[in-house]
């Protein structure tokens, strides 16, 4: 299944302890060269610790990780990778341009190349007009775009991004996502951690879900969605407010969630339930305002896998 490609990242039994806490527990996975790989998990699941081990910020206690054939954390592995850490900042007391030049020096990029790439990148992320301004005057979205430029100044083969759109407004997040797709289209491998299921669904060709330090699933977003049995649902809104207990008693309903003025009913057989809901509305003499049959989402898969449910 995962044997016919040259992996950009190969992780074997990677483990990290923080005292008594087993933050990452013997995880294994591979990322295909040229892929966008999503690494999903709830807070404290071990995502950032994994990224930090892969980017050489911290050392693993057990296991190994290879980045394009180089041991993670080695100078060679760091040289071919660009990193946008979750909590990291650009230097606020330097201008955007000087931050880029510093990164270029730290990656050994020649002055001419650095100037050329910096101008191209700043133009691409629409920061060219602000390149001389101190970063402390940038908005959060501008800082995040600059961090991306800093990661790309060395023209890396692989890009690690830890929650790159976290806390950004819709436009900035969309801008970053489009940029990542462009970067990937030029053959770069992207390793992305995110909380945002829509982002993972839109961007990633494969995702791994980590929970309590263990990988609980690795597959394409579509296959993970489809693997959630019994998680089909119907979202319905009635003319009047209904008692959710009545809905729970309808045959075939496994779970009812109230979502504002709508109810979401989970069922293994949505078409059969739709007929029953029409009968229910007739019996109560009230109209159905809206009825949508929903396939399970990646979020459903994520919740099922991280709350101990089975796909």
């Amino acid at each position, binding site marked *: 299944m995962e044997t016919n490609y040259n992996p950009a990242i190969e992780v074997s039994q990677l483990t990290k302890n923080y005292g008594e806490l087993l933050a990452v527990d013997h995880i294994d996975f591979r990322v295909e060269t040229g892929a966008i790989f999503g690494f999903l998990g709830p807070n404290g699941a071990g995502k950032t610790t994994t990224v*930090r081990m892969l*980017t*050489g*910020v*911290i*050392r693993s206690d057990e296991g190994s990780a290879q980045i394009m054939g180089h041991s993670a954390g080695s*100078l060679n592995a*760091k*040289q071919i*990778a660009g*990193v946008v*850490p979750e*909590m*990291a*900042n*650009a*230097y*606020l*007391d*330097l201008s955007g341009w*000087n931050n880029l030049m*510093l*990164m270029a*020096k*730290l*990656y*050994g990029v020649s002055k001419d190349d650095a100037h050329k790439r910096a101008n191209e990148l700043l133009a691409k992320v629409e920061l060219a007009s602000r390149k001389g301004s101190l970063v402390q005057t940038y908005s959060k979205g501008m800082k995040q775009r600059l961090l991306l430029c*800093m990661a790309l100044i060395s023209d890396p083969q692989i890009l*690690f991004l830890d929650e790159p759109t976290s806390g950004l407004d819709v436009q900035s997040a969309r801008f970053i996502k489009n940029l990542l797709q462009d970067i990937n289209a030029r053959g770069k491998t992207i390793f992305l951690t995110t909380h945002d299921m829509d982002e993972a669904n839109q961007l990633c060709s494969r995702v791994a879900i980590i929970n309590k330090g263990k990988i609980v699933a690795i597959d394409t977003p579509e296959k993970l969605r489809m693997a959630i049995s019994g998680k089909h649902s119907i979202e319905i809104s009635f003319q009047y407010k209904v008692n959710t207990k009545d809905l729970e008693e309808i045959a075939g309903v496994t779970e009812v969630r109230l979502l504002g003025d709508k109810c979401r009913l989970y069922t293994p057989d949505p078409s059969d339930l739709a007929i029953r809901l029409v009968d229910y509305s007739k019996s109560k003499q009230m109209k159905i305002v809206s009825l949508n049959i929903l396939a399970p989402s990646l979020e459903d898969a994520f919740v099922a896998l991280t709350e101990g449910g089975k796909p």
Partner: protein
Amino acid sequence: MTLSKTVLLAQTRRAFAIAGKDIRIYYLKGPVVIFGILFPAFLYFSFVVGRNMDADVMLPGLLGMVVFFTSTSISPAVTPMETASKTLERLMSCPVTPHTIILGDILASFIFGLLISIVPIIVSLAIGTSIQYPALLGAGIILAAFCFSAFGMILASVPTNKPSTVMLLTVMVKFPLLFISGIFIPLGELPSWGRIISRISPLTYFTDIARHCFQNQGYLPIYIDILALIAFTIAFVFIAMRLHLRTMPRRI
């Protein structure tokens, strides 16, 4: 870890890039210059004014204080500040070794210490004091500035993201050293127990070199002063590297 000559050269260049960043961000600030020059100068004059001392007696102590204070003024706080401002993780993910990061911080402090040491030398020349061994003084300043910068990096190894915590520790360590290093009272005039204690301070040896250069009357032989400063420098760099290698991952 064995590094090839090419890698070593590249890492050295990158250490200078880190030093340049440090100087630009942390050192070229008004309060830093004030703390590095004015504070030691005022402190020194508060002790010597009214004691009817000649300039060539005063200047070695003043120079010693300025080099010591400037070289240890910011280096202890750089790593905590980088931790607090979330820039250390970015630096650690770059293709530089932890040694390169520490060397870069030491170099920044060293360069700053060297540049500021020019001020008391200009003052001494302006008031007509002659420097009898300028080359020796230059070598002593270079050695001392590097030694004190490495000492500052030892203080920076406390795994905190609060610069104030480190600065408090720094003050607690730096001030006692001033009083046992022959700054205010030349070594020869100290009681015997004072002379013994003075040997544990690297500042003692630099101040003695300065007295050789300004007054031609140091207490210790020159070669002892130079060898002691070299030994302290090697020890401080080694200790700073070891401590930071241990504490750096804990800062993240």
